[in-house]
Each structure stands twice: as structure tokens, then as C-alpha cells.
């Protein structure tokens, strides 16, 4: 089987050495070279490579974030000068983890492992990827949403609220809506509980956007946002909201 490979590294020379090594290997083809994470996501979407040779430290979107966005579609081999990400790399099911500088034989071994995994027809578990792929400690400062070849970076403070829609969550952010394949419960654990509160089974609200709480004609509580949007508040949601706001 001929492997189609995309090389992702923000350094031209680092890409060059991988390309050089791959040239000497049978049955591989470099289909794309990407200088950053955005290009990588686009390449995965447009060209559907089998393998990403992926640097970790890159501007704007790091390797883990790229993996979070595309990991289900492609086998990932990390290459980096840093050894401290190795454990996390295997937690998110990377095939291999190469430390710079590395030799052609080490890369060949990684490619063999890719073939082995693809040969077993292994499908990567979806949920663990989405969950563990997010920045490990603390609350996430931004949400990455993949929209075909494009990646949207949503700073959490700009999100008004999040709505559950079947297997997806819908982010409302600066007047636009973004869909991401994730459950609301999962998302909730990555958001700062001092800023975001689950006001309803289907809604997580950024409390900074809350203007007031009203009762509708059927005596249900409604959250009214600064822009006039009305969201339902459940009984449990109201308890969480009042606990957070200290009233």
C-alpha cells in the first residue's frame, strides 16, 4: 500500500530533512508540506493523506490542537525537540513520537508502525481523542472548530452561549454559529466554571452575557442576554446560576 504523507512543521529545514528521508523509502508519497497547523487541517480535508508527520511547537495551532481537529482521519507521527509531550502524545493515540534530531532509520520505523496500524484496520476511538486532545491542565482559553478545510479559533470570552444539538454543540460567538462534534457534558468540563454555567440540559451560558432573568407566561424562568436572546433555565440550572452569582 502506498502511503500518502503530509509533512507539518513551521521550519523549512525541518520539513526538508523529513522529505529527504522519505524520498529514500519505498511506497511513500509526500502529498503536502504545511508550514502551520491551519495549512495542515486544510491539507487533511483537501487531500486526505494517510499520515501526518507533525511538529508540536508551531505558531497559533500547535500539533496537539491539529490532532484534536483531524485526528480521526489520519495517523499522526509527532516530531519535536521536546521530550515532555511524549506521554500525552500516546494518550491521544499518536502512532509514534520522534525526537529531533533523528535519523532516517528512526523515521522508517515510525512509518512501519503506521503501516502496521493501518493494516490492522484500526479505527481510532473518537471520544478519547476529542477529550484528551484538549489542552491538559486548567481550563481551555479557546475553542477550535473545524469547518471543512478551515479552522476557527474562538476565544472562550467571546462565546455567548453553547447549545447542544444531538451529537454536536453549537457555539454562539460574535453573531455567528459554529458546530463542533462534541457533547455538551464533555465541553462543560473544559470551561471555567466561574464563567460558564449549565443553565439547562441543552444550554451552557457565559455569565458575562446575562442581562437579567425573567419569568415567562407559564412561570418558566428565562435568561435574557445583553443582545435580547432568550434562553430557557431549568430548575437545577437556576440553582447553579444563583450559586455562581451568589444570590
Amino acid at each position, binding site marked *: 500500500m502506498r502511503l500518502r504523507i503530509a509533512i507539518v512543521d*513551521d*521550519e*523549512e*529545514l*525541518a520539513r*526538508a*530533512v523529513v522529505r*529527504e528521508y522519505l524520498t529514500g523509502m519505498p511506497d511513500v508519497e509526500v502529498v503536502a508540506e504545511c*508550514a*502551520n497547523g*491551519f495549512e495542515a487541517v486544510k491539507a487533511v480535508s483537501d487531500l486526505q493523506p494517510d499520515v501526518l508527520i507533525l511538529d508540536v*511547537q508551531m*505558531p*497559533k495551532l500547535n500539533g496537539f490542537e491539529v490532532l484534536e481537529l483531524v485526528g480521526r482521519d489520519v495517523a499522526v507521527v509527532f516530531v519535536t*525537540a*521536546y521530550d515532555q509531550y511524549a506521554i500525552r502524545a500516546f494518550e491521544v493515540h499518536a502512532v509514534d513520537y520522534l*525526537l*529531533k*534530531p533523528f535519523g532516517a532509520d528512526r523515521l522508517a520505523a515510525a512509518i512501519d508502525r503506521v503501516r502496521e496500524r493501518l493494516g490492522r484496520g484500526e479505527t481510532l476511538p473518537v471520544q478519547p481523542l476529542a477529550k484528551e486532545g484538549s489542552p491538559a491542565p*486548567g481550563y481551555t*482559553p*479557546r475553542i477550535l472548530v473545524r469547518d471543512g478545510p478551515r479552522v476557527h*479559533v474562538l*476565544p472562550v470570552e467571546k462565546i455567548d452561549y453553547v447549545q447542544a444539538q444531538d451529537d454536536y454543540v453549537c457555539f454562539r460567538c460574535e453573531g455567528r454559529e459554529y458546530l463542533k462534534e462534541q457533547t455538551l457534558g464533555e465541553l462543560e468540563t473544559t470551561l471555567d466554571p466561574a464563567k460558564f454555567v449549565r443553565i439547562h440540559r441543552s444550554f451552557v451560558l457565559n455569565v458575562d452575557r446575562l442581562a437579567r432573568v425573567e419569568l415567562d407566561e407559564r412561570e418558566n424562568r428565562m435568561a435574557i442576554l445583553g443582545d435580547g436572546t432568550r434562553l430557557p433555565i431549568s430548575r437545577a440550572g437556576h440553582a447553579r446560576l444563583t450559586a455562581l452569582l451568589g444570590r
Partner: protein
Amino acid sequence: MHPILGRAGRLALYLVAWLALCVLVAGIFTRFGLDWTEALALLAPLCLVYAFVCLSAWYVSRAVPLTASGVPRVLVSSVLAAAFASGLWLGLAHAWIAVLGLTTAFAPAAERYARQLPFLFAIGVLLFLLALAVHYVLLAFEAARQAERRQLELEILTRDAELRALRAQIDPHFLYNSLNSISALTGSDAPGARRMCLLLGEFLRTTLDVRARQRIPLADELALAERYLNIEQVRFGSRLQVERRVDPDASACLVPPLLLQPLVENAVTHGIARLLEGGLIRLDISRRNGRLAIVIDNPCDAGATAVRPGGMGLDNVRNRLDAMFGRDARMDAHVEAGHFRVELLLPAGVDPDTIKDTEG
């Protein structure tokens, strides 16, 4: 801990000294109408007890330290303490003479014993003062030893800090990435690979060299930063641009070694490396009114939250400036409109020899 009671060896020596004193005083008493047996029967138990009473001189020596208290205060408190201790001793002697008087062997001496009491008081005062002197000497001795140990600890700490600075300042990842660049260049551009090896070698050598010196001319520090930037430019290519404006008057100024390099490294790793298109690092060095002003400005990712730009490298520079110049140096770092800017202001000191060179 008591300097004598706390150590068995010293206590033994102290008691032997008291034994000698006891015999000496007994010898004196034989001149005043007592025979040796009578004198020793009186003095041996009294001296044994008084030896321990005199150990309390330690509290006096600690409460009235020689260095901190004036001479009159030391004299008055010593004499008062000695009189008090000797008074106690006198009381004991009185009781002991009474006990001896009950025995048939020493009953005849009771009258002569009583005549020694004023003399005994004087000796008690003298002995206590002697003990006090010994304690003062011991105290000074311990203090000197402690100061020596503190000095040693301080030296170890300093050495330790230097070692840590060394480790922190040559970032191993910088080396790994540079080696990776060399590895890439060997395939496509052998002269380029060699150039990179030479740059890296020079950079490492100068880094280790300048570290041994207290201060180096700014020109040397600039050359070091320049080498670092040259190496990183091989890695980052056109993403890394540098613009420098250096006042020629400034290059002779003496600065602590590795003052600029960590700041420049910072500008690359926390600034340029995190931007898709890279950017321009601006280095502006000027000298005016006896002050050296250094400004390093680089674009940074405005969207990146959390991590404070700089961190270890900046703290290290700040601490060393503090240690060297105190309030005479200032360092200011801030983010403004997508730019990270570090400003240093320090005294523009120069080596007298260098002045001659530039003026002559």
C-alpha cells in the same frame, strides 16, 4: 546549647581545671591556719558545686553580649552576677562548715573555718569572673565558626545559582533544533551545514567564556546575541528579521555577561516563533546622560493568553541587574498593541583602559 555542658569533652576539661583550682585554693588556705586535710575537706565539695554554679555565667554572657553592650554595662553586670553567685557560695560554705562541725574530726577546725569566709567570698567572685571570661571567649569562638559556615553556605548557594543559570541559559531545545537544522543542511547544502556548525561552536564557546567574567563590554555581548540570532535565522529563515540601532558610544560600556542574549532569545522563542509570518525584532541601544538604555521590541501573538511572555529568562536578567546595580538599574517589560517590549536602563560604566583607547 551550652558550650560546655553540651559537650562531654569540654565538660571533663572544665572539671579538671576546677580540680586544679580547688587544690590551688586549698594550698593558699594552708597558709592561713588550716592543714591540707582540713582545707580539702572544706573546699572539695564546695568547688564541685561551685563549678556547676559558674556554668550559669553562660546566661550572663548571652544576655550581655560583649559586642553589643558598652563596657560599663558588661563590667557592672559581671560584678553583680559574680557577687550574687559568690554570695550563694558563701551560704553553702556556711552550711557545710556547720555540717563539718558536727564531725569529731573537723569540729576543732570550725573556728578557723569561719575566719576564712570573707576570703572565700573574694575567691568566689574571682572564680565566677574567670568562668565568665571563659564563656565570653567560647561564645566569640562559636560566633566566628558560625560566620565562617554561613559564608561557606553562601558561596555554595551562589555557585549553585550560577550552575542553574548556566543550565537555563543554554536551552537544550535550542541545541536539538540547531542540530536538526544541521542534519537537514548536510543533505542539501553542505557549506551551509558547516557554517551552522561554526556558528554554533562559536556561540557555545563565547557563552561559556563570558560567564567567567564579571562584566564585559557591550560590544562583546552584542556579538554573542548576534551569533544567536544568526543561528536562529538559519532555522526560521525569512520569518526572523532583525533591525539594530546601536549608538557607537555605547559599545564600550560594561554590562553583566549574558544580559542581552536571554532577552533576544525570549524575543525569538516567545515572539517570532509563535507568529505564522514571523516578524521583526528591533534592538535599540543608546547612551545618554551617563545611562545606557537598551530597548528590545518584538511582535507577539496578541491572541495567545495565559503564559506571561518571558518568564525565566527575564527574571534571571532582572535578578542579576538587581544584584549588580541595585536601584541604579531599571528593567521594564510590557505588552502593548501586539508588541512585547523590554527596556533596560543601567549606569553606563566603562573600563578606564577602554576610555583611553577610544579617546586616544
